[in-house]
């Protein structure tokens, strides 16, 4: 378990501003943010490599302020793996145990166990410079896990890899976390990795925490236009909200005006899940609240489901529909289609002044 409270630190061009974060035991927390937002700095500060200017880091309830990195129970995996090139794979994995004066027999057992767990036994006798990127990261994971850390810190371990090894290591990390249950802080700029691995997501920008929440929640209900854009939320429309009838708000976007159930007034943005957008062949009827007529711009067939991009005025709407419905639409011809969604499907968030 780890608690970070009001953490601040600056280092070079990076900075952290008043970060408050908590990770429960066995939790997989992904810290998501663009490059240069201070994610690595956050991890290194948690690891104790940089001292915090203000705020506290507690690991397993203990304040880490005066605990040097080598006394913290932390496993750290760097983006470029940072294996010790002067040591072979097995020596790399047992390094932490050696520093803890674990006897040689136990060390060998533990190394063997981890090698089997990560399926890298065939690498043990090799030098680290001859390994592929994926193999290096697995060895780095094994090295970090060998000391049975309270917290595992992963600094973009997947980003230097090609897609295939990325996918396989992703599965590997998931399996490891299920088996070992080590509390993990994983920083990345890739929302797909966050979607696949995270129990919870902390969104960070320029050293400040933007949003923290369950994975599904962050993706479905981003709290700002930055969050929405960064997690690639579908159907982002920007507009101005004003009060309307029945406790709804009317939001005027570029090309359309829609109703949503929300309390927010003023400059806002919305996101609408594509599966909540219903398409119809007839022209939109006026008595429905959010019903629009648009031109089909693009159809993407994804096997079983199809994604249709519509142009409504100056705005765009994306909808996913079952394959069967797609053929029906295509058969009837005509590029004018109506799109409709409930006011409840619309998620409204406040727009930042800066953006």
């Amino acid at each position, binding site marked *: 378990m780890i608690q970070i409270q009001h953490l601040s630190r600056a280092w070079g061009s990076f900075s952290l501003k008043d970060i408050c974060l908590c990770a429960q035991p066995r939790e997989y927390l992904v810290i998501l943010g663009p490059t240069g937002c201070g994610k690595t700095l956050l991890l290194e500060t948690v690891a104790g490599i940089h001292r915090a200017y203000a705020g506290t880091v507690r690991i397993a309830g203990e304040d880490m302020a005066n605990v040097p990195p*080598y006394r913290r129970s932390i496993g*750290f995996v*760097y983006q470029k793996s940072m294996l010790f*090139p002067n040591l072979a794979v097995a020596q790399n994995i047992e390094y932490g145990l050696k520093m803890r004066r674990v006897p040689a027999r136990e060390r060998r057992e533990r190394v063997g166990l981890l090698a*089997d767990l990560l399926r890298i036994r*065939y690498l043990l006798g090799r030098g680290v410079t001859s390994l592929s990127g994926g193999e290096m990261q697995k060895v780095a994971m094994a*090295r970090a896990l060998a000391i049975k850390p309270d917290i595992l810190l992963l600094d973009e371990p997947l980003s230097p890899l090609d897609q295939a090894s990325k996918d396989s290591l992703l599965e590997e990390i998931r399996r490891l976390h299920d088996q070992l249950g080590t509390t993990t802080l994983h920083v990345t700029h890739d929302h797909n990795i966050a979607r696949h691995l995270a129990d919870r997501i902390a969104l960070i920008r320029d050293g400040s925490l933007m949003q923290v929440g369950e994975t599904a929640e962050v993706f479905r209900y981003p709290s700002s236009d930055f969050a929405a854009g960064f997690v690639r939320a579908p159907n982002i429309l920007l507009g101005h909200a004003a009060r309307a009838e029945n406790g709804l708000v009317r939001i005027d976007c570029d090309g359309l005006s829609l109703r949503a159930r929300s309390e927010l007034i003023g400059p806002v943005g919305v996101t609408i899940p594509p599966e909540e957008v219903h398409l119809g062949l007839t022209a939109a009827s006026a008595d429905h609240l959010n019903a629009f007529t648009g031109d089909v711009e693009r159809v993407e067939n994804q096997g079983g489901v199809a994604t249709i991009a519509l142009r409504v005025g100056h705005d765009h709407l994306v909808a996913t529909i079952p394959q069967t419905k797609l053929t029906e639409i295509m058969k009837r011809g005509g590029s004018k289609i109506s799109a409709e969604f409930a006011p409840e499907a619309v998620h409204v968030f406040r727009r930042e002044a800066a953006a």
Partner: protein
Amino acid sequence: MNRREVIKFGALAIALLAVQALTLRGILRPVGQLCLYLSNLFALFMGMYSVRPSKRMDLNFYVLGYLTLFVLFFILARQPLLLALFVILYAALYHVPGAVGYLFIFAFSFALFAPFSLPVFLLASLFYTGIRWLVLRRAGLLAAVCYVLGFLLFAATLLPMLQMGTMTSFQDLTKSISADYVQNAIRLTVVSSSISTAVIVLLGVPLAYVMVRWRFRGRGIADTLIDIPILIPQPVVGIALLTMLGPKTSAGQFLYNYFGVEIAGSVWGICAAQIFVSCPFLIRGAMTAFQAVDERLEYAAQTLGAHPIKAFLTITLPLASKGIFYGCILSWARAVSEFGSLTVIAYKPATAPVLIHDIFTQYGLSEARPVSVLLVVVCLWAFVALRVMRTWSPAGLLTRAALRHYDTNPASEPSLG
């Protein structure tokens, strides 16, 4: 060979005999005549048999090569028997790629550069090897120009050394090595340089680490100060040290009274001067080496439970060891070659460079040369060490030794359980 060719060869052989008998009568004795004739006959045979007559260019080159040898040895050097020898070699080696080139370099350097023939041959062969390599790889004009210009500089440093080496006979060397004062001087040089290098390593490696890892105020100035000893003229170093530690100064008297150490005219003075002049080489070498070690490797070691000192000793130092060792060799070589400041601070006991200078001024060049060669030979081990280091490192050997325990066979370990 068919019958026509045999007849043709016979006719040419007889014609050759006639020409040679007519032109060389009186110039060569009959045995010499016979040798030359036989080698010419061999060249003729090889020319007809192995150089294809259809390839006109090839044949022309063959004849051109023969004529060159003829001019070199017969006309310029006036050595018909050497010509006979070279003609046989030439004819036999004509089709071995590259060999003819070395043969001609050999021929040229011995026929034309008589007193410097060996160094010239060695250098020219080296040059030829490089050019051949460049041509075979189609390296292009830029590479060729750079190579030629670079080689000129290279030759300018190597040629005098080679000449000095070849001019010195083995007897001279053994004579000078058996002399007591030479032995003493070389021993003193090696010992004092080693002490100096050890001191520099002990103090310079931490300094280099600090310079690389920490950004502190005044770091730029410190960085410049490191190079100062290289910039200062050597006698000035001696003067400065003597001013500081000489027998009449308070520091010198303090050292003498309390430690019994005399700086001027002693091993300690020699070491002081050597440390002064050779420390930049080690510090620079170590700094480059530490720069190449990623700081995050140390962080990783620390998160794994290594105290920063332990991380430095187990990760950083082994990774930088190659560069530090390289710096050691340079420092050591610089300490060995130190002369200027030693003439001021400790002319006696004389280190080898001082001794060489001493012998030169008293007895002249031919007496100083053997000792110089001896010193070069002593320094050669440093050169060998530099070469060996490229492929071999102590850290690598230790790793291999430590891995004996690990069975890397996937089937042999019990499962996770």
